[in-house]
């Protein structure tokens, strides 16, 4: 659609702005590291010599509720981050495999949310009064739903053969597109009044063509910004669902699942709680920081407008 040089220039420009923010850079590195960890999970656990599902009965003290034997939750040369209370499964292995699920579900559900949100928002923004009314009301109601409860109900009716991570993505995605739709609709309503859209109509473009050629590229920036905010909240959603016991299927691990078993171990085995909590915290924080930076980078207005009084001069 646009020329490669223009696109490249744009990307380069955004990257330059991003680079200038040290926090964002750090966060981006953290995210990159997380992705690498998730992708390399089999390799990393192979190096450690463990896997995430094998029980180690001898490493926990059965009589005291299954608390790991040894300090820091049973940290040893074999088990770098200790073992899970009760089962003796390797915490490091479960953490890195858990990263796969957390990231996959977060990204996947964000994609679903964005796709639906953009489609609905565009249709509402460009459609006639009735369609707009219908879709806007639906969007409002979607935003009104107690999503957590609905997810539980939805997860309940889907046959258990359905792959869980995909189901999680779909459920979080299907229930969470309201915000995106709103942003896109508002943006569309603004954009469609712009002269270049009028010009495209005069040029004989159909609505679909206008949406695709004129609106989508302009909507991309706010949508990316919004998606960057959705990501961390989806990480937390997945954790929340797993926390409530309707997340991934055992013996698969996810951070939320680990946290849900870990929360009661706060005092007896703090290490076990801190690790998934830290991972979750670091991930959402990193996503948020990067998201913020992306927003600033994509909307230089916000940054430059603060320089008061330079209208017409800068």
């Amino acid at each position, binding site marked *: 659609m646009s020329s490669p040089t223009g696109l490249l220039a744009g990307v380069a420009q955004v990257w330059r702005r991003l680079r200038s923010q040290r926090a964002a850079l750090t966060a981006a590195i953290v995210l990159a590291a997380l992705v690498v960890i998730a992708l390399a999970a089999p390799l990393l656990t192979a190096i450690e010599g463990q896997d995430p599902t094998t029980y180690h009965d001898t490493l926990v003290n059965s009589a005291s509720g299954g608390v790991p034997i040894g300090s820091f939750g049973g940290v040893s040369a074999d088990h770098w981050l200790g073992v899970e209370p009760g089962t003796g499964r390797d915490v490091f292995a479960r953490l890195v495999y858990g990263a796969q699920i957390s990231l996959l579900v977060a990204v996947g559900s964000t994609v679903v949310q964005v796709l639906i949100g953009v489609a609905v928002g565009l249709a509402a923004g460009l459609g006639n009064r009735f369609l707009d009314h219908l879709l806007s009301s639906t969007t409002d109601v979607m935003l009104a739903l107690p999503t957590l409860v609905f997810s539980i109900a939805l997860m309940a009716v889907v046959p258990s053969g359905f792959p869980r991570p995909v189901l999680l993505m779909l459920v979080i995605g299907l229930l969470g597109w309201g915000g995106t739709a709103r942003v896109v609709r508002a943006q569309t309503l603004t954009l469609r009044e712009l*002269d270049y859209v*009028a010009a495209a*109509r005069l040029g*004989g473009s159909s609505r679909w063509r206008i949406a695709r*050629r*004129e609106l989508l590229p302009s909507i991309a920036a706010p949508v990316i910004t919004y998606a960057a905010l959705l990501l961390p909240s989806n990480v937390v959603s997945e954790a929340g669902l797993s926390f409530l016991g309707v997340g991934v299927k055992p013996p698969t691990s996810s951070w939320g699942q680990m946290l849900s078993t870990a929360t009661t171990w706060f005092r007896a085995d703090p290490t076990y709680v801190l690790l998934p909590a830290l991972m979750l915290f670091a991930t959402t924080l990193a996503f948020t920081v990067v998201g913020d930076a992306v927003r600033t980078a994509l909307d230089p207005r916000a940054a430059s407008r603060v*320089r008061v*009084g330079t209208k017409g*001069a*800068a």
Partner: protein
Amino acid sequence: MSEHLVEVRGLTVEFPVADSYVRAVDGLDFTLEAGKALGIVGESGSGKSTVAFGLLGLHRGTGARLTGSVRVADVDVVGADDGELRRVRGELAAMVFQDPLSALDPYHPVGDQIAEVYRVHRKVTRRAARARAVEVLDRVGIPDAARRARSRPHEFSGGMRQRVLIAMALACEPRLLIADEPTTALDVTVQAQILDLLHDLRAETGAGLLLVTHDLGVVAGSVDHVLVMKDGRAVERGTVAEVLGTPREPYTRALLAAVPRVDAPVHPVDKRGPVAAVAAGTGGAAATSDGGDAAEAPAAPVSGGASAAVGPVGADGDVLLEADGLRREFGRRGATVTAVDGVSLTVREGETLGVVGESGSGKTTLGRMLVRLLDPTGGQLRYRGQDIGALGEKALRPLRHELQMVFQDPVSSLNPRRSIGESIADPLRAAGERDERRIRARVGELLERVGLDPDWYHRYPHEFSGGQRQRVGIARALAPEPKLIVCDEPVSALDVTTQAQVVELLGELQRDLGLSLVFIAHDLAVVRQVSDRVAVMRAGQVVEHGRVDEVYDSPQHSYTKGLLAAVPVLDPTESAARRAARAGAR
């Protein structure tokens, strides 16, 4: 120490951009004596507003670099501490901003806003400050000031808001008034009133006035001295009579020449002659990324001076488009606003119909209905005899390409995320053209046709100046080979020199391609230049229409007369005479 009210020496202001600085003002010197008025004139990007802001030290904390010396009422603005600077602001020198709507806090009553400013500088009670606010509001001509002081800005009209801003400036009886484009956002009749008010106030309070504007007509009647700026430097200075009457510098001359005159005799139209100036003036203009129409050198004296008018051509051409009792209402039941109220007019092949009116007169709504961007709510719209007013979007599509539009705002009329080539090619693709080579060729041809480099297909709108963008918009309108183009304020966002070039281009295209034009503008002078016939709109209705010279030279309707009388003139003497006439009429 200094006998000058304002003394600026070697002022240089630089703004940080990416990794370097851009120099907005470059070694400027000037002075202003108490009670006198100085006009700073320049096109956009000349640095004139930056100077005004610099007088109040408004660059502090913005990262701008400021060197040289600025003294206002004996205070060294550059070196002053925060407290001292705050005293300068409002107490010694007060600023009147350009856009009165955004320059006032929307949440607070105007009286409170003025009172707040007053209390910053005077230790008085809240009640006393309110009283002062009412007093100054009354002074600037707000009727029923005591009550209106409790209204919020959006409850005022544009002119009244500007008066409020002036009242705020008056509150602390400053010794210097700085007016930054105080009338740009206003209609011509209101503009005259505001200028008169400033004039009277100066006479009354003895304050100095620094008037910053792009409009030579505005300075003509309002200041004693003029400073012409270009690219951050002073090009020419002198008394207003000298500078406007006998300009020495070519730039000033070009500037003056480009100003359309409402009173100019209509030139015999040469619709066949080449207008080489356009190509010369713009073809070589380099596109600069940081914009600024200044990049577009003012064309050397354009085709013999005042205007390149598009004169009347055979007024007896076939009727192309005909509106009959066209109406348009907005809003829902119970709260409708009638924007266009039964307008009937015709556009013939190859002619230019001018539509003038002030803001809110319904001229833009009318223009959009003519090309069916808006659906009429009443009346008929006939194109070549066929009623197209009620056609659905699908049925309309085959006709779409024959009716095109050029928009006012060169920024919003081009999609910033698509290359200009893509934008121009869009109608071609929409029409089903798939051959990439032919598309490229045609776009190149169109770019060349409007005086741009045919190889600029891949450039993005932000790489162009306003005038160039408007050319791109014209190229896009031309792409589907239309029969009629509605130009909605096509030059009002452009600097005066660029304005002239674009007008020139439109005329040339009309002549070459046999186009019909509907030229909508608030600027009476521009309309006169380009139109064969003209319609004057007010409150959704056409109050007067006819051949252009008839309407301008012997207006029949009082509204038209008032409009024409309010147009600023370049001759300071004439301007003063008109002011006196207006004052007498009050």
